[in-house]
């Protein structure tokens, strides 16, 4: 990855738009390669190439091959792509909206709200009727995380919006307060948890794609795709927002509508991602930042590129997570932090003068 970012960072500024367009293709190729890797490697020694050659010659796959490739690796790969893309796009949209390259859904309480939902589900499930758990047990954590994310966004929005106008500053500060509150309530729940629940909490908190199944993908996938598609319409508006809300309004951007759509996009994509994969950090900050340095801050290029790079990055991190200490697995959040944090610091050091914090 370092070679790729190096090549991107050394691009002359003049042809940034051309570079950004070309980057679409490079990043698409990178995504395809990541997907192949993700399908080919895993704890089980099943070979993708072996299965493909069997299919090519008309042979029947073994049950083992079908289960590993189709039921485990395929949904996991697609889930990694969706979650990575949605985290990166949510980060880019939030940064554009707040005009701050360090803004992140985690910052405005969406992540904390989703986390509170998941923790509540894990801890309070003990008090729920057994019949209910039997029916919905698998879905409970995901659904609760999703609704936590939504609820915190809506609450935040009510606090920060007065007579139809959202104050970004109020929203940022209210988000910090809401995040602290959600963190405190989560803390109380963690205190109440027993040992088994604590283990679940820790693993959920670090994030993992291990729970990826086709049914989960069918719930989260469309929501993530819809929010990424919605983000595609925000490019021009977010560019103008870089000049400030007032100037964006003067240029003719419907600022209030832009803010509504941006907030909802972030809530939906973060909620869905946290629900199915837990807390995965750094993707939302590192990916847009890296792309901004490489191909410029134009959101019309940045948003699709962030989706592609975010997807590749998370798939890559997941491959590392499940191969490095096989047959056990590292939580993917650890991998993204170990990969992401040094890259982030390196970028800051290298381009210190240009990164306007």
């Amino acid at each position, binding site marked *: 990855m370092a070679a790729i970012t190096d090549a991107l960072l050394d691009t002359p*500024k003049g042809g940034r738009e051309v570079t950004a367009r070309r980057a679409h293709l490079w990043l698409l190729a990178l995504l395809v390669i990541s997907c192949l890797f993700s399908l080919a490697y895993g704890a089980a020694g099943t070979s993708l190439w072996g299965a493909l050659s069997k299919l090519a010659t008309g042979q029947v796959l073994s049950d083992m091959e079908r289960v590993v490739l189709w039921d485990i690796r395929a949904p996991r790969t697609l889930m990694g792509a969706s979650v990575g893309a949605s985290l990166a796009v949510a980060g880019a949209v939030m940064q554009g909206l707040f005009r701050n390259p360090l803004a992140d859904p985690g910052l405005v309480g969406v992540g904390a709200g989703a986390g509170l939902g998941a923790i509540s589900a894990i801890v309070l499930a003990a008090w729920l009727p057994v019949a209910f758990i039997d029916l919905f047990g698998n879905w409970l954590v995901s659904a609760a995380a999703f609704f936590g994310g939504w609820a915190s966004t809506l609450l935040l929005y009510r606090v920060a919006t007065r007579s139809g106008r959202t104050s970004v500053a109020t929203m940022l500060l209210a988000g910090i307060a809401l995040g602290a509150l959600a963190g405190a309530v989560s803390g109380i729940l963690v205190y109440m948890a027993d040992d088994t629940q604590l283990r679940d909490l820790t693993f959920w908190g670090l994030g993992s794609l291990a729970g990826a199944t086709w049914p989960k993908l069918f719930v989260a996938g469309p929501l993530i795709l819809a929010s990424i598609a919605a983000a595609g319409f925000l490019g021009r508006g977010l*560019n103008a927002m*870089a000049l400030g809300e007032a100037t964006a309004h003067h*240029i*003719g951007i*419907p600022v209030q509508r832009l803010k509504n759509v941006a907030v909802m996009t972030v809530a939906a994509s973060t909620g869905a991602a946290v629900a199915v994969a837990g807390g995965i950090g750094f993707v939302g900050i590192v990916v847009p930042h890296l792309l901004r340095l490489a191909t410029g*801050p134009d959101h019309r290029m940045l948003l699709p590129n962030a989706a592609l790079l975010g997807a590749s990055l998370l798939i890559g991190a997941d491959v590392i997570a499940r191969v490095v200490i096989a047959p056990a697995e590292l939580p993917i959040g650890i991998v993204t932090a170990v990969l992401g944090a040094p890259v982030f610091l390196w970028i800051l050091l290298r381009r210190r003068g240009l990164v*306007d914090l």
Partner: protein
Amino acid sequence: MLQAKNITVSFGGKKALRGVDFTAQPGQITAIVGPNGSGKTTLLRALTGEVEHNGTVSLDSHDIAGMKGWELAARRAVLPQAAALAFPFTVIEVVRMGLFGGTSGGDATVPSAALARVGLSGYADRLYQELSGGEQQRVQLARVLAQVWHPVWQGAARWLLLDEPVASLDIAHQLLVMGIARDFAKVGGGVVAVMHDLNLTAMFADTVAVMAAGQMVAQGPMAQVMTDDTLSHAYGCGLRVSVAPPMTSTFVLPHTAQLTHDIGPLAPFSAVRTNTGC
């Protein structure tokens, strides 16, 4: 015609504007002058529809409250006082942001032409954040010009609303920018500019509006409004308006170092002794 009637603006219960009437005609530069805090910028922000206000602002007899954002953007461009930029956009990218689809948007040469107009031809691919304050101000002006590149569009005048457009510029670039405003007005566009420099105002403005303490003190043709009495009263210091030979240009100078009326508590400087005992 850009017209404001009975505009009142309050910030947290304090009135920043009290029943201000204002009119600007296309084909002219209308300067809004007055001391700090007199409401010049607030009036401009009411004209752009940016602050909530009582009273009406109308553009060619249409209430701007009923106009859509893009309709307003097609008719007027606004140069703000300070222009921070969040991300490292290049100069040409910033100027292109001013393009509005359907008006100047179709003409790809407009951003370069606008940059050339403000004297920044070779700057297209420079990073905005690396420029000096004065250069950034001119990039913003180029963006604003790109937005309303043709001063008359579909038979109607378009407007430049400028908030202290020469604030961070050297004298040559002050003349450049005011010259751009004059050329824009000469071919039928309208210009409203909040000004601090009374001499530049005297040199370029056709109409002058003088504000003090949130109220309109006087508005009319430059020569009629810029008088010793009106300016001295508005600014609270003795000012003399003169005509300089041989070019017969009007200029304004303070004729005494003393303030003529109270503009706030002015305690004399004295050594400050702080009590550090505890």
